[in-house]
């Protein structure tokens, strides 16, 4: 709903005031009030003049008519007096009578003409009077008739109008005076009426319109129901609508500004000349200043020698983009800078830049620049990348160490610790360093750097390189000092810096060792390993057969291999096999630091490969099948090792569908009638329950081959359990004197 406005309460402006001030209704020629007043005055004056002129004309006509009537009457009387004289042709009498007219001041001329004669018998003209014209006199002509009706002649008189003219002049002056008074009165009355009913209401409307234009609308009082009243009412309604609309627009602008301010982007808008408009986000103001009219090129690239090319390229881009239409802009925007490094408040900001064309027809083209502060994100990315690189280096070093023998790394640790100890001793002994000490330290660091590089220990190498560079400088200083016969010793600050460096290296070395131990399957045991040649060990084992059992046992312990050696490659292989089978399988290995006999280690890798491939092909269901029976989508195969008094047991279990006893029976062609024997048949050569022979399984040789390989190492394979929830196989040493199984030892769990 609209709000109520104050009512225009100012006194109505005077005509002069309204006409004097600049206003909405002022135009060339003055205000409407002035023009109205002038119009009224001119109109009234004109009308009055016309009326006065007409009245004068009528008065003059009336005077002329009266004068003519009087003249004609005189002519009649005079003609009657002349009739006897003319009848008797008494010219003298005629002349006497004509001369008698001289006494009249009104008759300026008179002449008498007898019938049949061309010349007047008598004529008279007043002396000193010019020949009168029609404007000065009127002419009266009358026939002289005898009593018998015979025309005897004619009389012509010219009667003066001088008296009438004087009278008319007085009358005209009086009428003009009255007309002027009337004109003034009428004009004043009309102006007052116009002011009251037109100018004043218009002035109020004007005041209200000015208020509306300046953003403080006021109501116009509506006092009448005439045109002005209706106009005022309409104006008030319009002002109300405008005010409502402006408030909605203002609210919308506030929401938009709020939105801009919370977009987390510095948003600028610039025109075709690159000048910033008023629209910008709060972040833009904080980062750029975003002063209206400033050039966007200066905002992004403050004048700087190193950024000259960027400035020029961006300037050209702005000019090109500003002249493009939306279709072209899509191409041109690819040529805009997409990021910029920006110095702000003493720190470098990294901004990602995007551009949007604000296109409102060819005449109004602006570009919106959205700058996203990615400083922290980039810093994190760099940090993560550096850490990833460092981690990768460490893992790479560890992988090489694991595959090549961890004892090398352990040796490096020992050597380095000793080296750092030597350095500490040298630095603690000498507060200032002489040339010999510097040389000794340089030698230690130089070797350490080379060794660290061998193990890809980049952080250690980098720190040692810094210390080596410092020592190199010290060497040069000392050489120069010797030539200059100086003291030949460095300052204490260098020693302190080197001491700190050594402490830092010790920390880095400890971190490297921790990483190595954490990554190595044997854990801290990896630090206790040493390399023994297999051929030499086997030779010792051969000789050990003749030795007492305890001593032989010790030699056999020496020949043991970590279980992890046999399983190290399996996680990657399982993932590959599962992918090929279209299944989702996860391998878990619990090696528990277990070391397994040398003979078992020789075959275990292959056996586990057979068993895992078989489990993936036969046991683990597809994701859909597993989910249908309520199992997790990903199948799990677990390998674990355990050592007990009975010896080493390796367990291979999965959470698949278990052995298909009926299928095994069928494929075994009835060789084993019961389930237990059917399961044992699973390990017979040539039997496979898979329908389609594939890459993973189906040939029917996998489990039989596994059994044979295990037997060669003195181990057998047992089905510890099988059901629709999974299967567990156990690899255990043959018991007693049994050397080779005739069937698998089975325990069947009913599903």
């Amino acid at each position: 709903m609209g709000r109520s406005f104050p009512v225009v309460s100012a006194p109505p402006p005077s005509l002069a005031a309204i006409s004097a001030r600049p206003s909405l209704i002022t135009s060339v020629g003055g205000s409407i009030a002035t023009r109205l007043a002038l119009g009224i005055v001119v109109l009234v004056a004109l009308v009055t003049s016309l009326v006065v002129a007409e009245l004068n004309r009528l008065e003059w006509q009336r005077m002329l008519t009266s004068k003519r009537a009087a003249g004609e009457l005189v002519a009649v009387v005079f003609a009657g007096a002349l009739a006897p004289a003319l009848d008797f042709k008494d010219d003298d009498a005629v002349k006497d009578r004509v001369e008698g007219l001289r006494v009249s001041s009104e008759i300026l001329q008179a002449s008498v003409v007898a019938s049949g004669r061309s010349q007047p018998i008598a004529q008279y003209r007043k002396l000193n009077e010019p020949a009168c014209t029609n404007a000065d006199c009127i002419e009266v002509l009358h026939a002289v008739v005898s009593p018998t009706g015979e025309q005897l002649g004619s009389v012509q008189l010219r009667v003066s109008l001088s008296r009438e003219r004087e009278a008319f002049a007085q009358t005209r002056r009086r009428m003009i005076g009255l007309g002027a008074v009337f004109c003034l009165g009428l004009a004043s009355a009309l102006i007052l009426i116009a002011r009251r009913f037109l100018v004043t209401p218009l002035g109020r409307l004007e005041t209200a319109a000015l208020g509306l234009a300046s953003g403080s609308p006021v109501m116009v009082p509506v006092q009448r129901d005439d045109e002005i009243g209706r106009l005022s009412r309409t104006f008030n309604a319009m002002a109300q609508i405008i005010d409502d609309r402006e408030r909605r627009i203002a609210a919308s602008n506030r929401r938009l500004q709020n939105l801009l301010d919370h977009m987390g982007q510095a948003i600028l808008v610039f025109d075709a000349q690159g000048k910033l408009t008023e629209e910008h986000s709060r972040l833009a103001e904080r980062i750029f200043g975003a002063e209206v009219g400033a050039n966007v090129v200066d905002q992004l690239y403050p004048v700087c020698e190193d950024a000259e090319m960027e400035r020029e390229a961006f300037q050209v881009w702005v000019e090109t983009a500003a002249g493009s239409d939306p279709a072209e802009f899509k191409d041109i925007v690819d040529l805009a800078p997409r990021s910029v490094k920006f110095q702000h408040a003493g720190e470098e900001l990294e901004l990602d830049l995007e551009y949007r064309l604000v296109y409102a027809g060819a005449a109004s083209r602006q570009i919106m620049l959205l700058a996203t502060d990615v400083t922290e994100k980039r810093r994190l990315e760099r940090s993560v990348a550096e850490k990833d690189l460092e981690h990768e280096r460490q893992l790479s070093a560890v992988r090489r160490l694991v595959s090549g023998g961890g004892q090398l790394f352990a040796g490096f640790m020992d050597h380095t610790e000793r080296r750092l100890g030597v350095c500490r001793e040298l630095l603690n002994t000498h507060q200032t360093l002489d040339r010999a000490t510097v040389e000794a330290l340089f030698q230690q660091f130089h070797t350490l750097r080379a060794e660290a590089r061998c193990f890809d220990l980049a952080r250690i190498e980098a720190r040692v390189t810094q210390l080596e560079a410092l020592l190199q400088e010290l060497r040069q200083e000392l050489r120069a000092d010797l030539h200059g016969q100086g003291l030949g010793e460095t300052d204490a600050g260098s020693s302190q810096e080197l001491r700190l460096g050594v402490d830092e290296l010790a920390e880095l070395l400890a971190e490297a060792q921790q990483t190595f131990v954490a990554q190595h399957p044997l854990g801290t045991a990896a630090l206790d390993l040493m390399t023994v040649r297999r051929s030499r060990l086997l030779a010792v084992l051969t000789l050990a057969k003749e030795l007492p059992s305890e001593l032989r046992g010790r030699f056999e312990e020496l020949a043991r291999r970590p279980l992890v050696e046999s399983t190290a490659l399996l996680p990657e292989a399982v993932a590959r096999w599962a992918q090929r089978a279209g299944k989702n399988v996860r391998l878990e290995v619990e090696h528990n630091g277990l070391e397994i006999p040398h003979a078992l280690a020789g075959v275990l890798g292959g056996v586990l490969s057979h068993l895992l491939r078989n489990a993936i092909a036969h046991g683990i269901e597809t994701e859909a099948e597993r989910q249908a029976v309520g199992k997790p989508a990903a199948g799990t195969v677990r390998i674990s090792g355990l050592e007990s008094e009975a010896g080493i047991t390796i367990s291979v279990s999965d959470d698949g569908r278990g052995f298909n006893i009926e299928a095994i029976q069928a494929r075994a062609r009835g060789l084993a009638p019961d389930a237990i024997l059917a399961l044992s048949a699973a390990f017979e050569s040539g039997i496979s329950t898979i329908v389609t022979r594939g890459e993973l399984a189906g040939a029917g040789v996998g489990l039989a081959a596994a059994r044979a390989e295990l037997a060669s190492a003195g181990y057998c394979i047992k089905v510890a359990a099988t059901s629709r929830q999974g299967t567990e196989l156990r690899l255990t040493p043959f018991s007693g004197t049994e050397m080779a199984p005739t069937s698998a030892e089975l325990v069947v769990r009913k599903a």
Partner: protein
Amino acid sequence: MSVAGKVLVIDDSELVLERVKARLQRESYEVATTSQPVGAARHLLLCDLVILDFHMPGMNGSEVLRSLRMLGASSGASPLYFLYTSDKSLSRGYRELGFDGTLINKGDDESLVQQVAVALRLAKLRSKATRGKG
């Protein structure tokens, strides 16, 4: 409009050329290199940017530039010619030497990549403006 483009690098050091070529090719630019300014004009066709060393035996970069501009104009090629130097006083006077721009920090490959991207943008914008006028 793709920012990728064809770049010709002229430098008397084969080592510099190899490094620059390898680094720019990693950014998917088409790169031609030569250590022989004489005959380099045959690479100009469809070339967007020419990067020139200044100190070269026999001819300096300015002389090579004049020669290439003349030959390029006759063959209708109008790439931008940029000076590549770590000498700040030289790079400041690139306009007086007749170059369209300068690539600074010679030897810093990452800086080179960023500057080449800017130079190629400028080259394409200039080329577009020229086509528009034509």
